[in-house]
């Protein structure tokens, strides 16, 4: 039944494809995006930050990739895992070539993993530290790679296969210090774009479409990333075709929403602003005291007043509601001064001298410094006001993020307001009040370690839920808000922007996923192109192939053959 349905869908798709015959060759399509210098986009010279990775990912491919819903095959068309998740076999696409025309083989993949692991002393650590899990890698034939891990790694497909860019052996084998190799060959990859020009000083990148890309020809001929002083201004002046906005920048977004020339999509930032408590110092080491403060803080007011509604109330368990690991229904400590006052009274912090400030049982005023990074001084000031209403006096002390981090790491604080991103994945839960490290709970730590290697998704999710629940109850941090992010774009230039599931690669919440440069399923009517993502998705549905759960399916190869047949047909029809 299901099979039939899918065939019908496919038929409809093909028919609609015929309906809209491809248009004649048009002028060069150029897309300009807000950018900035993030380094030479070789896998070893981009700046170790999200946007840098994105720039590199346009040139270099990984074995797997992600769309807005799931993990999808990329250089590897399929895979399986064995031995409790410690052995992974990946089957490569057939006719993939490097930009210089050399074929991409399993040896390149083997070389890449070994090469990067050998050079891990240089500052490549961040994106590739997962290679520490790799025991060894083999290439039994041209198109098959076998990775053996030391421990099970549930996030293998995203953090390992979906993150490490494959580099050509014939170029890198003689390069001894990859971080200083910036010859033109260093940016020969297999990806949808080739680097045409890069200007470090001015932060400009010019990419040209790779006409021979194994997934098809990108929708734009040239992609330009450039540094602009003020994105909103540059966007409205037409200097760029897309820019992203964040949190309180919602006011700019609203301006563009009202403008028919622009379209806006919103996504999760995987970012959280939180109140961090020092769980080692009196009185913030008392859970009830932390809870009282949580009740005293009105997160809604912060969002309305400071962020202008450009954020959502945060999950008290830290992980972002749009993350697949999110646990709903945790206590949210909605603003309630009565409860807060009761808790404080019970702890014996009572205002005896009537000055509006509670005193410790020792008689001293209940008074702290509220540390904050410069950027969040306004949030901190509002919290200061809110806490004053429940008799806690705080003085806001703002400083640079670096200084704040240093102070938090030393543990020299009571309460601080600070934020960070990356909350799509559970590995961030290791030290919940990061960058502080004052929360110690043995049960919590052991659950964390357990989930790290748990291969069963349901079981792992349960463990992660336990972690979130503990945080929400114990409150080593009280999360405040998750800002929203927006992409404002000119749909005439490109209108396929979307937000990737749990962020690109290891969780970069940026709308620039290289998939946007290819047609999508729903767009087929418009210009006759079909997104190969949808094709593989349909094919996978036909073949009941789920890369994550059915990795070890015995009939897998047969199913893949079916997929190949459909895919080939589509290629013949010129739709991919």
């Amino acid at each position, binding site marked *: 039944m299901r099979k039939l349905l899918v065939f019908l869908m496919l038929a409809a798709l093909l028919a609609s494809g015929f309906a809209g015959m491809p248009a004649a060759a048009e002028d060069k399509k150029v897309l300009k995006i807000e950018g900035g210098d993030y380094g030479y986009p070789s896998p070893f010279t981009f700046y170790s930050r999200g946007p840098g990775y994105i720039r590199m990912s346009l040139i270099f491919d990984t074995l797997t990739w992600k769309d807005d819903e799931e993990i999808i095959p990329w250089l590897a068309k399929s895979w399986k895992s064995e031995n409790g998740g410690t052995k992974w076999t990946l089957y490569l696409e057939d006719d993939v070539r490097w930009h210089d025309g050399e074929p991409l083989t399993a040896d390149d993949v083997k070389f890449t993993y070994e090469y990067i692991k050998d050079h891990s002393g240089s*500052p490549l650590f961040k994106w590739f530290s997962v290679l520490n899990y790799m025991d060894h890698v083999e290439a039994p034939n041209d198109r098959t790679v076998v990775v053996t891990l030391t421990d099970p790694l549930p996030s293998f497909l995203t953090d390992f296969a979906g993150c490490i860019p494959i580099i050509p052996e014939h170029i890198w084998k003689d390069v001894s210090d990859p971080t200083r190799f910036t010859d033109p060959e260093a940016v020969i990859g297999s990806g949808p774009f080739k680097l045409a020009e890069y200007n*470090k000083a001015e932060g400009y990148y010019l990419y040209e479409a790779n006409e021979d890309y194994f997934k098809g020809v990108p929708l734009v001929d040239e992609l330009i990333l450039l540094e602009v002083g003020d994105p909103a201004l540059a966007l409205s002046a037409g200097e760029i075709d897309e820019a992203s906005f964040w949190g309180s920048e919602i006011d700019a977004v609203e301006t563009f929403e009202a403008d028919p020339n622009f379209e806006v999509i919103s996504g999760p930032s995987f970012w959280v602003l939180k109140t961090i408590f020092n769980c080692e110092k009196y009185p913030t080491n008392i859970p009830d005291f932390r809870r009282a403060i949580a009740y005293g803080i009105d997160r809604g007011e912060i969002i309305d007043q400071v962020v202008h509604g450009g954020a959502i109330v945060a999950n008290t368990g830290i992980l972002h509601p749009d993350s697949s690991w999110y646990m709903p229904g945790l206590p949210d400590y909605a603003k309630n001064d009565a409860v807060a006052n009761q808790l404080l009274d019970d702890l014996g912090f009572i205002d005896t001298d009537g000055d509006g400030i509670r005193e410790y049982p020792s008689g001293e005023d209940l008074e702290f410094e509220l540390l904050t990074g410069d950027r969040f001084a306004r949030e901190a000031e509002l919290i200061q006001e809110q806490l004053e209403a429940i008799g806690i006096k705080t003085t806001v002390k703002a400083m640079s993020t670096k200084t704040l981090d240093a102070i938090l790491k030393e543990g020299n604080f009571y309460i601080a307001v600070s934020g960070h991103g990356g909350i799509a994945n559970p590995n961030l839960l290791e030290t919940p009040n990061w960058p502080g490290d004052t929360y110690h709970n043995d049960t919590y730590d052991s659950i964390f370690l357990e989930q790290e290697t748990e291969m069963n998704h349901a079981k792992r999710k349960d463990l992660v839920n336990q972690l979130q629940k503990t945080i929400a109850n114990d409150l080593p941090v009280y999360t405040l808000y998750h800002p929203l992010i927006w992409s404002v774009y000119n749909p005439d230039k490109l209108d396929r922007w979307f937000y990737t599931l749990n962020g690109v690669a290891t*969780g970069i919440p940026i709308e620039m996923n290289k998939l946007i440069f290819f047609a999508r399923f729903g767009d087929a009517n418009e210009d006759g192109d079909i997104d190969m993502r949808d094709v593989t998705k349909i094919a996978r549905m036909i073949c009941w192939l789920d890369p994550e759960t059915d990795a070890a399916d015995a009939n897998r190869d047969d199913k893949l053959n079916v997929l190949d047949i459909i895919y080939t047909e589509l290629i013949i029809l010129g739709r991919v």
Partner: protein
Amino acid sequence: MHHLTKITAYILIIFVAISINFALPRMMPGDPITSLTDDPTTGMPVIMDEDIKEEIRSYYGLDKPISEQYTDYLKDILKCDLGWSIYYNAPVAEVIFERLKWTLLLVGTSTLIYMILGIFLGAVSAWKRGERGDLGLLVSVLSIGSFPSFFLAMLFIILFGVKLDIFPIFGATTPFMEYSSTFDAFKDVLYHLILPASTLVLTSIDGPYLLMRNSMLGVLGEDYIVTARAKGLTEWAILKDHAIKNALLPITTVIAIRMGFMISGAIFVETVFAYPGIGKLLYDAVSFSDYPLLQGAFLIITLIIIAANFIADMTYLYLDPRVKHG
């Protein structure tokens, strides 16, 4: 002999500057490694274990004793190796020199213009001492000089970039423009330079103007001006041949000091106009705690200023025969 002491003094200043550059970042809180562990653009923390941190520390030589770091630092500077930028993941010297040309262009052009203009206006003002023109010039120059450069820059963006839309609002060139000729390229660079340079010129012009005016007023009261007048020279000839050269003398030293101010001013102007110069780089380096880059940018700025001082001293020697032959 005189030259020799001067040069020794300069070498000493450079040495001290290098030492301060070395010591300053190391006295500040915050581990440089910290800056590697989170991502200011996405705010994504990376939790590293101590082993990896150690590896990175040793990679950057941060695990060695301070004295050894210092000698290494000196040696590297002599080799023109300013270290490896943690943030930009590239040699510091390379990062700086790519941006340096823009700052030099911006500061150089502005300095040239505001010096000539300021000196000219100052001379005119002093000449017309007490008259309406002098007062008008004085008040206008002092007023425009009271604008913080970033504020004027913002107003310029709104006025010329947004309302009138006649000048570009960011960058130093039109990205990926294919120039048909060198002249075209020149025009494009100039076009991008006009707003930032005007900002710097206008906010700096009060310095040379006032100096020239004062200096000129002083000179005009000198006996040799009376002599010149007693010779029957025209007012213009007196101004041109007798007054300006003398009045310029004390200003040459100031040009150098102003050069330092200009580079500082460039930090603001480059930030507001997103001009890819060393001023913006310095600010970025500071905010990312990129020690090697910070040291490098700082050192280069210091060296430029010292070089400007040196040139000014030499110019003074050249201009003033009393020092040259004395």
